C-alpha cells in the first residue's frame, strides 16, 4: 500500500521501454485507416482489451465481491437518511432527511460514547506509540542474533491470539483470586474487583493493548532499520559519535518515513475502534458503562439490539466520515513535514 507508487513508477518505466515502440508503429498504421485520428482511441482500447481480456476475467469474481460486500453497504449508509425497518428494502423505505442525525446530536449518551472513544484511543496512542518505537530501538541494539530472534518471536505471539482469549485472560487476571489481587494482598492492600471499577477501565485497556501489540508494532520499524546503509554508522563512528548519538542522528532520521506513516494510520483511527471494539465489547459490563461505552458498542446496542437501524447507521456514518477527514488531514500534514504520504 505504501510503496505502490514507487513500484508503479519503476515498472511503468520498464513497460514503456518494452512496449512503446511496437505500439507507436501500430498507431501510425491506424492513422492511415478510415476514421483516422478519431477512431484511433477506440481501436487502441479494443486492441488493449483483446490482448488483456484474461486479466480482466481473472479479476471479475473478486471485484464482484468488492462491489457487493464492500460497496453495497457503503451505499446502504443511505438508511441514515431514510427510515429502515426489518423487511423493508435494504436501502430504506421513506426519506427522513437529517432526522436521525439531529436525534443523536441531542443525545447525551451519544456524546458520552464519543468522548469515551477519544479518551480511550488517545491514552492508548500516547502510551503505545513512543513505547513501540523505544522497544524497536532497543531490539535493534541486541547484538546476539539468536537472542534477538527469541525476544521477537515471543513478543509477536500475543498478536495472533484471538481477542476472545485475550478478554478471557484479562478477566481472569484481574479477578478477585487472580495474580494482580494476589500481589495486592501480599503487600497488605485490600483486593480490588478491577473489572467492575470504572476508574480502572482505561488502565486495563491500555495495559492489555500493550501486551497484545508492543512486539508486533516493532516489525515495520525493524524492517526499515535493517535497510539503513551501514556506511552511515561507520561514518558517524569515525566522526566520533557515541552510541546514543548514532541512534539519534542516524537511526531515527532514517526511519522517520516509517514513523510518519504509522502515525498517520494511528491518527486516522482515533475516532474509529478497529480492533479495540472487540476487546471493549468483551470486557465491558453494565458497571463500567460510563467509561467503557464507545461509539461502536453504542452503535451495536442501538442498531442490532434495539433495532434502531437508521439511528445507529447515522452514528456509524458520522464516525466513518470523521475518520476519513482525520486521516486526510494527518496525511496532508505528514506529507508536508516529511514528504511521506499514504496515497
Amino acid at each position, binding site marked *: 500500500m505504501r510503496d505502490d507508487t514507487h513500484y508503479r513508477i519503476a515498472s511503468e518505466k520498464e513497460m514503456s521501454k518494452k512496449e512503446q515502440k511496437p505500439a507507436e508503429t501500430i498507431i501510425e498504421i491506424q492513422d492511415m485507416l478510415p476514421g483516422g485520428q478519431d477512431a484511433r482511441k477506440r481501436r487502441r482500447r479494443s486492441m488493449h482489451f483483446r490482448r488483456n481480456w484474461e486479466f480482466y476475467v481473472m479479476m471479475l469474481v473478486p471485484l464482484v465481491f468488492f462491489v457487493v460486500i464492500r460497496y453495497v453497504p457503503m451505499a446502504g449508509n443511505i438508511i441514515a437518511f431514510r427510515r429502515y425497518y426489518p423487511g423493508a428494502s435494504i436501502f430504506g423505505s421513506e426519506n427522513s432527511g437529517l432526522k436521525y442525525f439531529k436525534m443523536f446530536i441531542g443525545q447525551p449518551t451519544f456524546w458520552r460514547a464519543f468522548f469515551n472513544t477519544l479518551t480511550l484511543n488517545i491514552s492508548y496512542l500516547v502510551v503505545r506509540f513512543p513505547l513501540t518505537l523505544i522497544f524497536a530501538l532497543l531490539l535493534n541494539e541486541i547484538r546476539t542474533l539468536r537472542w534477538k530472534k527469541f525476544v521477537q518471536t515471543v513478543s509477536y505471539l500475543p498478536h*495472533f491470539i484471538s*481477542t476472545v482469549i485475550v478478554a478471557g485472560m484479562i478477566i481472569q487476571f484481574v479477578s478477585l483470586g487472580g495474580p494482580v489481587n494476589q500481589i495486592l494482598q501480599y503487600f497488605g492492600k485490600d483486593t480490588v474487583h478491577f473489572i467492575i471499577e470504572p476508574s480502572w477501565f482505561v488502565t486495563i485497556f491500555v495495559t492489555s493493548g500493550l501486551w497484545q501489540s508492543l512486539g508486533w508494532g516493532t516489525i515495520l520499524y525493524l524492517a526499515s532499520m535493517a535497510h539503513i546503509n551501514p556506511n552511515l554508522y561507520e561514518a558517524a563512528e569515525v566522526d566520533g559519535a557515541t552510541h546514543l548519538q548514532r541512534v539519534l542522528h542516524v537511526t531515527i532520521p532514517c526511519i522517520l518515513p516509517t514513523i510518519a506513516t504509522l502515525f498517520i494510520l494511528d491518527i486516522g483511527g482515533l475516532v474509529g475502534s478497529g480492533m479495540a471494539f472487540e476487546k471493549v465489547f468483551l470486557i465491558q459490563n453494565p458497571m463500567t458503562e460510563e467509561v467503557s461505552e464507545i461509539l461502536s458498542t453504542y452503535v451495536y446496542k442501538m442498531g442490532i439490539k434495539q433495532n434502531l437501524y437508521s439511528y445507529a447507521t447515522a452514528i456509524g456514518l458520522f464516525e466513518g466520515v470523521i475518520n476519513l477527514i482525520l486521516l486526510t488531514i494527518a496525511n496532508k500534514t505528514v506529507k508536508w513535514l516529511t514528504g511521506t504520504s499514504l496515497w
Partner: protein
Amino acid sequence: MIENERKRKAVESKDAALHYRDSFTSKAIIKGNENIKIKTADELVIRKWNKRESLGYRVFRVFNLFFMILISAATLYPFLYLVAQSFSSEAAIVSGSVTIFPIGFNITTYISVLSKGEFLLYYRNTIFYTLVGTTSSLFLSALLAYPLSKSHLKANKFIAPFVIFTMYFGGGMIPTFVLIARGLNLWHKWPAFIIPALISTYYVLLMRAFFIGSPHELEEAGELDGLSQFGVFFRIVLPLSKPIMATMTLFYAVSYWNNWWNAFLYLEKKDWPVAYYLRTIISYAATSNDPGDVSAEKMQVAANIKSTAMVLMALPIICAYPLVQRYYVQGMMLGGVKE
C-alpha cells in the same frame, strides 16, 4: 594521533569483516544452502570492540538484557498462568494460590471439556471454517492481486483506487449487517461466517507488492511458448509465489480461526465456532456484577473450564507459530519496507 590510528584500524578490520562476510554469503548462496550460519560484520568484530566500549554503553547493554528478559517474561506469563489454571484443582484456583505451576495437578477438566459433545462440535466447525475460508480467500485474493500488479492494464488506474478506498472507509456495522442478514438472506446460514471476510484489502496489497517485485521473465517466456494468461498464472506465477502464499495462508487462517464476531451476528448455536463458544462462557464473568462469595466461587469453577477451553483453542496457533513465524515477518516486511 594514536586515536586516529586506532580508528583507522577499526574501520579496516570492519571492512575486512564485511568482505569476509560477503564472500561467505555468496558461497552459501552458490551452494543453495540457506542454513549456513552467516555471522554479520558486527559479530565478527565485536570482540575487538568490546574493549573500547564506554562504561555507559556497557551499562546500557546490561540494562537492555534485563529489559528484554522482563518483556519476554511478561509476555509469556499470562500463557503459563492459563495453562497452570487449566491443570489445577478447583480448590486451588478458588483460594487464589495458582501462580506459575499447577496446584493439585489433574486432567479431569480436560476430560470433562473434551467429553462434552458441544465443545468438539464447535471445534470441528472452527476447523471447517478455517479450511474452507482460507482456501477461497487465498484463491480470490491471488486472482485480484495478480492482474492488479500489471501496470500495463489500463483499467488498473480505476480498479486500484476502487479497491484501496475500502481500507479507509467502509459500510459500517449496521448496513453490513442488514446486507448480509437481510439483503443476501444469510441469516442463520453458515456461509455468513466466511463471506464478509473473504477478501482483505490489505492482504491483496501485500500480494500485489510481491507480484510486482518478482521477476517477469518467466511469465514472458510462458506467453511466448503459447500459454494463455490463465496458464501463466496457474502454472508459472502461483508455483513461484510460495513465500507469499504461505504468508497469506497463515494470515487468513489465523483470522478465520480467531473470528467470533460474525458468528455472534449471524449464526445459530449448532454452527458456532469455538471462539464464539468461548465468548459465551467468559461473558458470564464479565457481566456478573455481584462480587459476593457464592458467585465468586461459581466464577472460579467456571475459570477452570474457561482456561481449559482457552488453552485448547489457542493450542494450534501456539504450536504452529514458532514454525511459521518467519513467514509472518516476511509478509509484513513486504508491505512496509521503504528504500
